């Protein structure tokens, strides 16, 4: 066998070929998505020889190549054997991309989604009549191979809509929505769509989903004479990370290429890739788009990119946006764009506080960040401030656990749970949990996070404990940071926890006033070294006093 191996061992022999370069051209046929598509060409030694957004056209030496095509979640590799002097032309027609928006260009788009979306974005699902002026369109799409659609969440009315004053406007039950279900026999897929549409006054709204297992609130702004469209995919429960929000004047259109670009930009933003193609920027400057949401997204992208000398350009973009919609100036996202622009270009920080949460989380976060130095930007104890501890960062859109209706009394079961969780945990972790539990207990039922809402709880009999992670996290932070007064900084803690300074101050105030830390008893901390505990309690109490000394 060894002999066979040796006799069959070839030494490399090379036959040289002419070194004329070859031409490599690659085209992206989906022109709307081309500027967002990244191409990277590797040679046969895994070395990158070319990369760009959009079409590729370059000279290369003969050889083996691999082209990587990346368009958000879509990744495809193509291999080429390129001979000297040859011309390689290749293209990609479309990408296998999924989206909650049933527009042409996504592999998740089907007529059984596009048809109802087009029909019911133009008619009220409540009255059946045609709509005009300002309106809201919610489109939920379901597609699963083995599972028929379960409409119990509609029957239970888990979705509701609050107006700007947080009064219940609609509970989206069966009689308020248009539901279509079926089965795609060819693909063996069960599908369903749920549409809710109605005319609304322009202004702020809150879309709420409240089931026993999942709770979310999404702020939605309705612009004057425009329709705000919210698209969400559903499985066993809504996939809020799939949310897309668009604007339209004439209802949904399945061949709207602006929406393709909007979806691409949202995905880029989600991945922290701040891509603003030149032609989109030009359109934005000149207000040449059909969908103002594309303009809003382009402004955010512009501000997040590395451009620092574009003040004039940016002002033109803002002016174009403001000229497009009557009440856009008052919207929270425009306030965020003005603030972010002021910060980037060293202009005066706006005086106006944020009236309601922005639809884009990046806008809301800009207010939080700037509020550390300019507290007036977020009203103390206002609705916006209460949102920060509840934020769920699963999407580029602002989403949070709905502001509570009421707080419920912590019962024995919860107390035991706390004990079980803390058993065996190092003392400081136990301390943090114990404090959190104690504060909750002390608060009930007098301290509420917000004015009671008029929306009844989906399951009013269920007991609910607000997750007071802020107080426990503060204790945890205080146990780790230095006792040096220069390092004890409320703003730093607020930044660390991504809440406002006022929230930190209030929590510290509760800890100090109630003496919560000192009240911790053996019931929660029975396994703790008493001496160690006493020292930790004293340290943390002293730090709280230091922090609040000048407040």
């Amino acid at each position, binding site marked *: 066998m060894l002999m066979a191996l040796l006799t069959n061992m*070839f030494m490399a022999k090379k036959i040289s070929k002419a070194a004329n370069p070859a031409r490599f051209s690659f085209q992206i046929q989906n022109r709307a998505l081309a500027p967002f598509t990244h191409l990277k060409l590797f040679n*046969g030694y895994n070395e990158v020889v070319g990369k760009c957004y959009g079409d590729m056209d370059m000279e290369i030496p003969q050889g083996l190549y691999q082209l990587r095509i990346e368009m958000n979640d879509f*990744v495809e590799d193509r291999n080429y054997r390129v001979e000297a002097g040859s011309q390689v032309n290749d293209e990609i027609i479309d990408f296998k991309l999924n989206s909650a928006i049933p527009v042409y260009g996504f592999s998740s788009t089907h007529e059984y989604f596009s048809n109802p979306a087009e029909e019911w974005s133009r008619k009220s699902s409540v009255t059946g009549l045609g709509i005009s002026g300002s309106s809201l369109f919610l489109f939920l799409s379901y597609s699963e191979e083995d599972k028929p659609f379960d409409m119990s969440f509609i029957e239970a009315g888990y979705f509701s809509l609050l107006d700007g004053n947080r009064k219940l406007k609609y509970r989206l039950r069966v009689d308020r929505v248009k539901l279509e279900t079926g089965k795609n026999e060819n693909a063996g897929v069960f599908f369903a769509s749920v549409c809710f549409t109605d005319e609304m006054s322009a202004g702020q709204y809150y879309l709420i989903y409240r089931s026993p297992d999942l709770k979310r609130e999404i702020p939605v702004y309705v612009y004057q004479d425009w329709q705000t469209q919210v698209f969400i995919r559903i499985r066993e429960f809504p996939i809020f990370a799939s949310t897309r929000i668009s604007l339209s004047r004439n209802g949904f259109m399945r061949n709207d290429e602006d929406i393709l670009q909007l979806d691409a930009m949202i995905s880029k933003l989600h991945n922290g890739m701040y891509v603003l193609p030149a032609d989109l920027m030009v359109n934005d400057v000149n207000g040449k788009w059909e969908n103002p949401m594309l303009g809003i997204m382009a402004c955010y992208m512009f501000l997040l990119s590395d451009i620092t000398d574009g003040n004039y350009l940016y002002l033109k973009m803002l002016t174009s946006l403001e000229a497009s919609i009557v009440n856009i100036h008052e919207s929270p996202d425009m306030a965020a764009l003005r603030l972010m622009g002021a910060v980037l270009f060293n202009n005066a920080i706006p005086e106006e506080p944020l009236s309601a949460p922005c639809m884009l989380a990046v806008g809301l976060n800009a207010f939080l960040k700037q509020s550390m130095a300019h507290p007036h930007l977020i009203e103390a104890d206002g609705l916006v401030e209460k949102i920060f501890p509840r934020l769920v960062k699963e999407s580029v859109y602002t989403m949070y656990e709905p502001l509570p209706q009421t707080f419920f009394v912590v019962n024995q079961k919860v107390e035991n749970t706390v004990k079980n969780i803390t058993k065996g945990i190092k003392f400081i972790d136990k301390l943090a949990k114990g404090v959190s539990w104690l504060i909750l207990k002390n608060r009930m039922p007098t301290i509420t996070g917000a004015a009671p809402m008029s929306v009844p709880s989906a399951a009013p009999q269920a007991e609910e404990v607000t997750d007071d992670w802020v107080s426990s996290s503060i204790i945890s932070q205080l146990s780790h940071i230095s006792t040096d007064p220069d390092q004890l900084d409320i703003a730093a803690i607020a930044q660390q926890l991504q809440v406002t300074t006022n929230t930190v101050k209030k929590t510290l105030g509760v800890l100090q006033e109630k003496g919560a830390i000192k009240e911790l008893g053996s019931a929660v901390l029975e396994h703790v070294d008493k001496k160690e505990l006493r020292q930790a309690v004293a340290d943390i109490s002293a730090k709280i006093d230091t922090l609040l000394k000048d407040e």
Partner: protein
Amino acid sequence: MTNDLDFAVVIGVEYYQQNTPLGGPHSDTEKFMDWLLDPDGGGLPRDAADPKSSPNVLKLLSTPTYTPRKDDLDLWLDEKMNGIVKDNQGARRFYFYFSGHGIGVTQKNSALLFPLWTRTNRNYALSSEKYLDELLKKGIFKEIYFFMDCCRNRIAGVEGLAPTWSSPLPASGAVDYLLYYATEFDTAAFEKPVIGQEEGLNNGLPRGLFTEVLINGLRGAAAGRNGKLSIGNLLSYVKLKLPELASAHNETQIPKAMLSLDPDHEICGPFQKKIAVTITFKVPGGKVILEDADLEIVVEEDTAVGFWNLNLSRGQYFLRAEGQQEGMKIFVDGITNQYVYG
């Protein structure tokens, strides 16, 4: 020769108090540890009494009965760094490897969750950025490598904790780093049963896809045609191969690297320029042509014997029957050395 001036912390967390258990971190961490101690890999010194461990490496694995804590890491590193300073011995590299649950904080920062992390104890995690910053300030290690095989999705209020040791002023000496995440910010990293050729890999147990590709790359698959393995070679290799592997599992995963180290800096090696491979022909007979990455013909022979044994340089090759343009691509990387054509 061992690299006595290199140090490492490797952490694998499979068991969490409140999070879903993971299947791959322990074996992934062991694989990284193997590479660290391999003379052809990291080359760190082995413990005389236990050749699977090293006095220069802290290995933390969570088990149902043992829960690693942040202090374990901070105290060990503090002691090692104090020892290095006291002995005036200097240090070259510091490797940090983590496999477990993670949360994305910013583009540069991830919170690496320790087992005691819970929703209320939500900051019981290492901040990759803060640890890196403090190590840079210390200036003890000249090269710092962070490899993190974990998700980077986001949760509010999580930033991760800094080490307990710190420096009053940044160090004056040059310190460079590579911060290498398994996935882009706000996306998931995956573990899958990976079938490999290496002994013990093809057991169908979950492996972190990033670690799988990373280790292959570090073991020479990423080396350039000259056999040298630079950081740039490694990044390029993982960037190319990880999405391929993820795609084979119907997932999307793209690694993310940030670095101040020179991409031309060699991380390990050099590796053999020529690699012995065997190409077996399913249907022997007929002439087959083997072309290299530059389309130069390497072999053009009859296949009646049924196989070729060759010494090939690193890189891609193309096998095709005489007169055919279609064929099969193979990649000679030193990891795989058996190919079947036809």
